């Protein structure tokens, strides 16, 4: 079993700052996807991801619930994205080249809430979702990695999806709207 977020955070606080790399490994992709959805520019999102992790590292001592690192990190990411957007909006006024910026992730804009919903899941569900979709492992590979039976992986994913849909339903989300219409 990998070290939990809480264990990683506590080890960083207790003098092993190199262990922050485990948290970066774990959350760089969902954070990047979240910021790419917000900023609609890959290079900006990459810069904002780095900035968010660096700010998180130096604010670790203020994190009250180490087990909620992921949600807290996305909160920092949201503020960084806001700053970047403000900076970009100023740039739009002065830089005509801005209109040619990379919009390849624009299609994901409606999914702004997805990573926030993932971060709100219990850590064991988050781990399953992140390994399956952000590390792009198959269910069998997830089972091998976590040393769990395949059936446990699919059942945990099933419960994770249910909670994820519940969280999405409570946010302004097109999928939730569709879902609420068809719910018996």
């Amino acid at each position, binding site marked *: 079993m990998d*070290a939990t977020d809480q264990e990683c955070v506590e080890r960083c606080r207790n003098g092993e*700052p190199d262990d922050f790399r485990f948290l*970066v490994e774990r959350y760089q992709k969902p954070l990047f996807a979240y910021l790419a959805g917000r900023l609609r520019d890959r290079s900006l999102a990459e810069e904002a991801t780095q900035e968010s992790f660096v700010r998180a*590292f130096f604010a670790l001592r203020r994190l009250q619930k180490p087990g909620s690192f992921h949600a807290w990190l996305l909160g920092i990411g949201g503020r960084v994205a806001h700053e970047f957007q403000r900076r970009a909006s100023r740039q739009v006024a002065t830089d005509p080249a801005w209109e040619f910026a990379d919009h390849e992730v624009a299609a994901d804009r409606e999914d702004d809430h997805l990573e926030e919903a993932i971060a709100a899941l219990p850590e064991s569900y988050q781990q399953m979702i992140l390994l399956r979709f952000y590390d792009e492992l198959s269910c069998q590979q997830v089972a091998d990695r976590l040393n769990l039976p395949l059936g446990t992986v699919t059942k945990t994913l099933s419960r994770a999806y249910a909670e994820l849909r519940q969280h999405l339903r409570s946010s302004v989300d097109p999928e939730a709207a569709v879902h609420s219409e068809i719910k018996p």
Partner: protein
Amino acid sequence: MNCLECQENLVAYLEGVLEEQASVGCREHLDACPACRQERDALARLQQRLTTRGQVAAEVSLVGRVMGRIRDTQSESHTTMQTIKTLLRWGLGCGAAAGLVLAAVLLFSTKGEALASEMMTKGAQAARRLTGVHLVCRVRTAPADNFAHIDPKMDFVPVELWKEFGALPKWRVEKPGRVAVMDGQSTLLYLRAANAALKVPKPSGAAFDTSWLHELADIDGTLSAEVRLAQSKGSTLELRRETDASGATKAIVTLEAKSGLPDGDYLKNAFFNTADTRRVYRFDEQTGRLEALQVFLHAPARDVLVVEVDRIEYNPSLDAGLFQLALPQNVGWIEEPKAAPDDPQYAAMTAEQAARAFFEACGREDWGEVAKFWPLPVDDQFKGFLGGLKVLKLGDSFTSAASNARFVPYELQLKGGTVKTHNLALKRTGQTGRWVVDGGL
């Protein structure tokens, strides 16, 4: 199959891992049940959204750059001494504090040359998205001592690091007298001469004073950090080119690195990270890959080469057995001190009192009492070395800015008559507050 059974199996069905018979049953039920079809479609849409999001981030690999920026920011936002104090408040030991000092090593003092910066940037780019790295080094160090220890008077010994990056990193660092291994689950140190091992039941990014090697292995992060510092603070970066025997052009970037420790600090120049050095990076100009690094310690007469990374393998094929360690059956395990009734009595000692108690216990060969201060197994070698000693003199303890240890000057007469003069390093243990010997023998 009814609705409940179908929905319980839907995820496995959609993932294609449901057994054939159940899969057929599920499919037949879905054909017949509109409500379950809606549920399947909703799940499939969610999976598709997640898959798309994962694909957006598939190529993201920022660990080296993030860790480099953290080291960089630590250097920029504090003076070195302030930072060390901060870390010591966090309870860092000497070696770990030394890890931070590497950041200070990366500071420059004058404007860097654009071409040298470009070469460093190219080297950083060539080291992105590595799956692993193997560093082959030679270091002037005591073969069995701390991994970060350097001494210009000593001969070179081989030091190697093998590292696998990714979601579950693994690494191994080895020198003749000790080896540290992190297999993704736990971190193990084995001291060959003492036949003693210490196991931390968790993965660690860089334990047992190996942080300087891990930072070098983060080639992307380290080179990027140096360039940023060069740009923001100016530097002594210099670039020259040479052609090797095969006709390939090599770019050589030289920079001066300061530890930030004041002259006269006891630990200055004792460890890689606490030394003022000149670092010489050697790149293949065509590929941009860093091929070698030499680190020269500034010494009064002439600079001395203390570390040479003479081979860097990128994305090597690393055998899983590298990250396992077969220990002798009779290995002695070093354990965390447990709470004991006499903790308050020992925690109340000063460093000088603890040093005296330790040495006098050695003198009367009271090995049970010695073990209260000595963290490793008290073996025959130890007993032969220190048994029967006589304390001639103990001085007032002092500290170093790079460590949370206290150092007690001593003069001993060993059993054979030899007089030994040195400084005993003592640290308080976090759990019990007792002093343990941390070096200086």
